[in-house]
């Protein structure tokens, strides 16, 4: 039963969105060295709020709802935290806090230093991304979600161009154009939906939408727009230079979280707003694009000579796995939740693993002064913790136990067997092998001997290495999740998906 009144503790949802907003406003007004401090104070508070929401949803097995302003949809706007939102919020909070800690090394502002452009801007953008992501996962109104998407884009694009080199400016401009293309298509779909059904509230739409041309066209437009933002093959051109060109903490957040925001909305659209619409054909189309991403991204990753670009192509590949949710849940049987759980676990473990990897790459680049993989020989002796973090994160990407990635891919494979769609299994296995290829390519060099004595550019910061390692351990810890459909991720699902078979 989906509640439509404000539930107890629903105010936490508002706080989750408004806290980073207040941070942005205070930072802008105060300026100077306060910006970093404001962020460092708000990050743990936000983490606590996210954990509280997660705990409440888990304990009560019910969504949290908040009706903003007391005006019920369709007139007003509602916020809703169901199982997947709560899990997504917690993942976001952990990654952002870790990124904040990690970024102090690069963007910290020691007492008495003058205002530095990159430092000032970075913390505000980080808060902006956090607020945008929380709004994306909590919003229950299609237009509210459009504004949230724009918030996310405007916070993410300047992160790409933060360093100011011409390659990053170019990458940022390309990202911006793709993102604008995506937003306007999404808006167009929203317009059509309002014209047809008279509401933009997702819960209400689930009751009103039926398969008819306008719903199909609106859904296709919105999906295409969101695919451009998620960089799914073949609309992935903007991602590698953008994620590789951003500073390391920025890349971590961009790859781990920002691209997942638009994916989250695709799921919301097909499973919550228009549940009757997903059929075999559309599922197969999305799955095929995902398969293309897995193969294409992994093969290209193998050909990279620079670490950050390799990791960026790996993101394209791992995002492809997420789209196997669509063909494997296109049915009403109870075991659909296997693919559901597997897909979401893939998202969360990839978030931790990819953030950790980009942090490791950042540390390596700082230590060596470059990120050319061929010359990594011997770094294992200098920054062993970083290499371990990279390796552990790589385990999750490959799908090797114990790791969240293993559980995710195992569940997805199980779903392909249950559904009789063995072709996805082939793709996943090939993808896993290729991932192993590029991960070991890097590890092999790192663990090998130095061909020439290493010249270190900057001394190593153990604290930041530990942060990277902790995130990688989070990815591994997700491997302790039981190998079965998760009840938490089912909370708030409409009846179409069914409940866990007893």
């Amino acid at each position, binding site marked *: 039963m989906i509640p439509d009144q404000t539930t107890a503790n629903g105010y936490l949802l508002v706080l989750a969105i408004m806290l980073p907003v207040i941070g942005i406003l205070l930072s802008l007004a105060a300026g100077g060295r306060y910006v970093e401090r404001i962020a460092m104070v708000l990050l743990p508070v936000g983490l606590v709020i996210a954990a509280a929401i997660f705990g409440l949803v888990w304990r009560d097995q019910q969504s949290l709802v908040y009706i903003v302003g007391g005006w019920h949809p369709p007139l007003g706007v509602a916020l809703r935290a169901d199982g997947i939102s709560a899990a997504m919020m917690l993942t976001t909070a952990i990654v952002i806090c870790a990124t904040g800690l990690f970024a102090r090394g690069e963007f910290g502002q020691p007492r008495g230093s003058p205002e530095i452009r990159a430092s000032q801007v970075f913390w505000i953008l980080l808060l902006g991304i956090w607020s945008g992501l929380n709004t994306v996962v909590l919003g229950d109104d299609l237009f*509210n979600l459009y504004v*949230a998407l724009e918030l996310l884009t405007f916070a993410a694009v300047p992160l790409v161009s933060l360093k100011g080199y011409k390659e990053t400016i170019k990458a940022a401009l390309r990202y911006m154009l793709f993102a604008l293309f995506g937003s306007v298509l999404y808006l167009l779909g929203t317009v059509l939906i309002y014209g047809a059904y008279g509401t933009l509230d997702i819960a209400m739409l689930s009751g009103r939408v039926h398969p008819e041309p306008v719903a199909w*066209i609106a859904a296709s437009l919105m999906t295409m727009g969101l695919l451009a933002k998620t960089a799914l093959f073949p609309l992935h051109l903007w991602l590698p230079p953008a994620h590789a060109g951003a500073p390391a903490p920025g890349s971590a957040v961009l790859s781990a979280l920002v691209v997942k925001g638009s994916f989250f909305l695709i799921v919301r659209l097909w499973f919550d707003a228009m549940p009757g619409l997903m059929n075999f054909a559309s599922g197969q189309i999305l799955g095929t694009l995902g398969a293309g991403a897995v193969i294409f991204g992994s093969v290209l990753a193998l050909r990279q000579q620079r670490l950050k670009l390799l990791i960026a192509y790996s993101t394209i590949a791992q995002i492809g796995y997420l789209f196997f949710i669509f063909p494997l849940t296109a049915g009403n049987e109870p075991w659909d939740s296997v693919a559901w759980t597997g897909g979401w676990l893939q998202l969360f473990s990839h978030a931790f693993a990819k953030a950790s990897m980009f942090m490791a790459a950042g540390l390596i680049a700082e230590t060596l002064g470059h990120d050319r993989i061929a010359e990594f020989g011997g770094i294992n002796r200098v920054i062993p913790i970083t290499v371990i973090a990279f390796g552990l994160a790589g385990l999750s990407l490959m799908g090797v136990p114990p790791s969240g990635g293993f559980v995710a891919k195992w569940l997805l494979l199980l779903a392909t067997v249950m559904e009789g769609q063995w072709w996805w299994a082939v793709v996943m296995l090939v993808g896993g092998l290729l991932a192993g290829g590029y991960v070991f390519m890097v590890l092999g060099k790192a663990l090998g001997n130095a061909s020439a004595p290493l010249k270190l550019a900057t001394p190593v910061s153990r604290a930041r290495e530990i942060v990277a390692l902790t995130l990688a351990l989070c990815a591994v810890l997700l491997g302790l999740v039981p190998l079965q459909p998760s009840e938490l991720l089912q909370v708030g699902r409409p009846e179409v998906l069914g409940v866990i078979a007893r």
Partner: protein
Amino acid sequence: MTPPFILEIAFVILILAIAVGTLVARAAFTAVLLFMIYGLLIAIAWVRLSAVDVALTEAAIGGGLTGMLLLGAVARLRESEGSGEEPGLPTLLAAGTLCVLVSAALGTLVLSRPEVAPSLAPMVMDNLAQSALGNPVAAVLFVFRAFDTLLEKVVLLLALIGVWSLAPDRAWGGVPGLRLYAEPSSILVFLAQLLPPIGIMIGIYMFWTGASYPGGAFQGGTVLAAMWLLVMIARLQPVPAISLRRIRLLLVVGPVIFVAIGLLGFVVADAFLAYPADYAKPLIITAEATLTLSIGVTLGLLVAGPPDRIPQP
């Protein structure tokens, strides 16, 4: 086919012709000029669609500020026109077919929908009295869907931060590189002295009257921004450095007050962004007033661009 309808057909054809002109014009300057005319024509179209608030916003932002921004860009881009490889014929044909299909689908869909189009107008009117406002669009913006408006203000500020972030490191905190006239002509100076007082009054009036009649914070704020830009371009006022405390405070006062009123709703009304029954109107007016100010400063600074020099002490 009555004469007014024929006029309307001619109007639409004009709009489309100018849109095509915008896209195919050889010189960028021509394209931008045509775009500004296009913006104003669209504003008139909005009046024909009985959406006066939108017409005001489109005229001010879509025609005025966007045009100004793009003209400034064209002035700097000088010799880059003609560069870039035009796509080959197959791509053009493929894209063209796709776009024609999309247009056809949209045209049919928008009109073929339920005979009685679903509408939230009745619900808005039912609750209008409770919202303490007379203008239904303003009620939607500042009462029913105030959350969207709040987030949108944050989006504006983030865009400004993004624009500022593109400044060179050494110029951070400095003065935006708004293109000024080296020696403003006497006509420009005269207009910049004459228009702003009138414009500021119009801007304030537009915000004030927006509670009951078409208008509102966004429209009024845009007029204020335009007046400020005029005064700066004519060198009657210096362009402020972005690190100035008062600029920063002006930027955030609107959203801060709005958020504060929203949080107040937790305490004195039932929910975030709910207004207590007795004080609804004054609270909304306060929020709108400060928002008008902030929007004006934000939009003006967005057009002014990233800082590119440190002010001389």
